[in-house]
Structures are given as structure tokens and as C-alpha cells.
């Protein structure tokens, strides 16, 4: 049974019926990022970052490219959802909000795809 009035539905007021998914994905990605970002920061502390050969060897070896890609996906997804929330909170003008949300999604996809492409390029260098 719906508690929404026919007029409310016609005016497109009320729930967009996707809030729970947004909320849950934000938390799931947050939990995934706890171990992943700790792993990343510890790795940064141990890596000789000034040495290109060591850095690319580390990015491409073992499970590192998989974990790095997962970190990128989780971080971009978490970030996309969060910036969306902030935009929805603070931008009130409809057209500006619409284009901002679109730019947010596009920007995050671009950054995520760019990072994963770079990881794959390094990891598959020997295989090509």
C-alpha cells in the first residue's frame, strides 16, 4: 500500500525509490575502503617512491594490481555517492544541480577509468 497521494505522485514529490541503495552502497564501499586504504598507505610507507623501476614493479606484481583496482573502484564509487549527497544538499537551483550531478558522475568515471587503465598498462607491460 502506498501512502503517497495521487497528486503527490503526479507532481513527482517524495521518494525517488533509490535512497536505500545509495545509503547501503556508501556504507559498503566505506567498509571495503578501511582495509584497502590502510594497505595502500602502509605500502606507500615501505616503497622507495622516487625509484620508477621499484614503483612499477610493485604496482604490477602479484595481487597488487587487483587490490589497487579494487581500491580505485571503491574510492571512486564512495566519492561519487558522497559528492552527489553534498551537491543535493547545497545546490538548490534545478538546472545547476542537474549539470553538477552529471559532471560529478562523469568526472568520477573518468578518474576511475584513467587509474585502472594506468594500473593495467603497468601490470601487462611484460605480457604484451
Amino acid at each position, binding site marked *: 500500500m502506498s501512502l503517497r497521494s495521487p497528486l503527490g505522485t503526479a507532481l513527482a514529490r517524495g521518494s525517488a525509490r533509490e535512497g536505500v541503495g545509495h545509503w547501503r552502497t556508501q556504507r559498503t564501499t566505506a*567498509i571495503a575502503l578501511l582495509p584497502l586504504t590502510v594497505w595502500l598507505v602502509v605500502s606507500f610507507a615501505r616503497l622507495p617512491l622516487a625509484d620508477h623501476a621499484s614503483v612499477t614493479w610493485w604496482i604490477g606484481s602479484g595481487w597488487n594490481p587487483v587490490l589497487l583496482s579494487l581500491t580505485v573502484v571503491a574510492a571512486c564509487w564512495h566519492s561519487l555517492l558522497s559528492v552527489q549527497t553534498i551537491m543535493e544538499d547545497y545546490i538548490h537551483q534545478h538546472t545547476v544541480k542537474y549539470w553538477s550531478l552529471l559532471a560529478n558522475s562523469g568526472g568520477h568515471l573518468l*578518474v576511475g577509468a584513467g587509474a585502472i587503465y594506468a594500473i593495467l598498462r603497468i601490470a601487462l607491460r611484460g605480457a604484451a
Partner: protein
Amino acid sequence: MNPRPLSPHLQVYKFFPTMFLSILHRITGVGLTLGLVAFTYWLASAASGEYDYGRALLLLGSWPAQVLLLGWLFAWCYHFVNGLRHLGWDASIAIEKAQVRRTRWWVVSIAGGAWVLLAWLLFCGRGISP
């Protein structure tokens, strides 16, 4: 669209440390979003070869970039520890007023301590500059 009723906003409330920690969670979150761009830039420079990686290191080793990197390190520490508190609240853990007041100081001290320790580990002696 018709103007919708608005709830009272910031200026009508007395300032509380809770408000500062709350907005700092958003600020550090947005900061980390920008950090994601820098991380991708770093990965892309490593992928495009030793020369480009060297140029990226020169840029990341400059003092404004080092200040930014220190800021991102703080943002990560704070967002991580305060995020744990948020996840706890979502599970109805430590959600009473007194507990929230107490864990506030845990967040500030743990995040601050982790920041200093990690800054020392990541920046002192070795740095990232070539």
C-alpha cells in the same frame, strides 16, 4: 517548481564542537576526492614511463604539493577514524549523547596521532622528492 518549506538553518543554532567535527568530515571527504585525482595522475605518470614519472615527482615534491599531500594524509586519518564512528552510529553503537561527546575526543586524538606518526614515516628522511 513551487518554493518548498525550509527547515531552520545553521545561523539559528548555537555552535557546538559536534558541528565542527561533522562539517570536517565533509570537508576532508571532498579533499580526498581531489586527492583521488592526484593519485590517478601519479599512476598515469608511472604508466607513461620513467621520464614522465620523474616530472611528476618534481611536481609532487614541490613545497605546495607537499603541503597538499600532508593535508590529504590528515584528511584520510580523520575521515577514516570519524568514518568508523559514523559506521558505529549506523549500527546504533555509541549513539547516546554522552558517548558521542566522549568518542569525539577519541577521534581527534587518534586521527591527530596517526597523522603525526604517518607524516613522520612518509615524509621525514625519505620524502617523495627525487
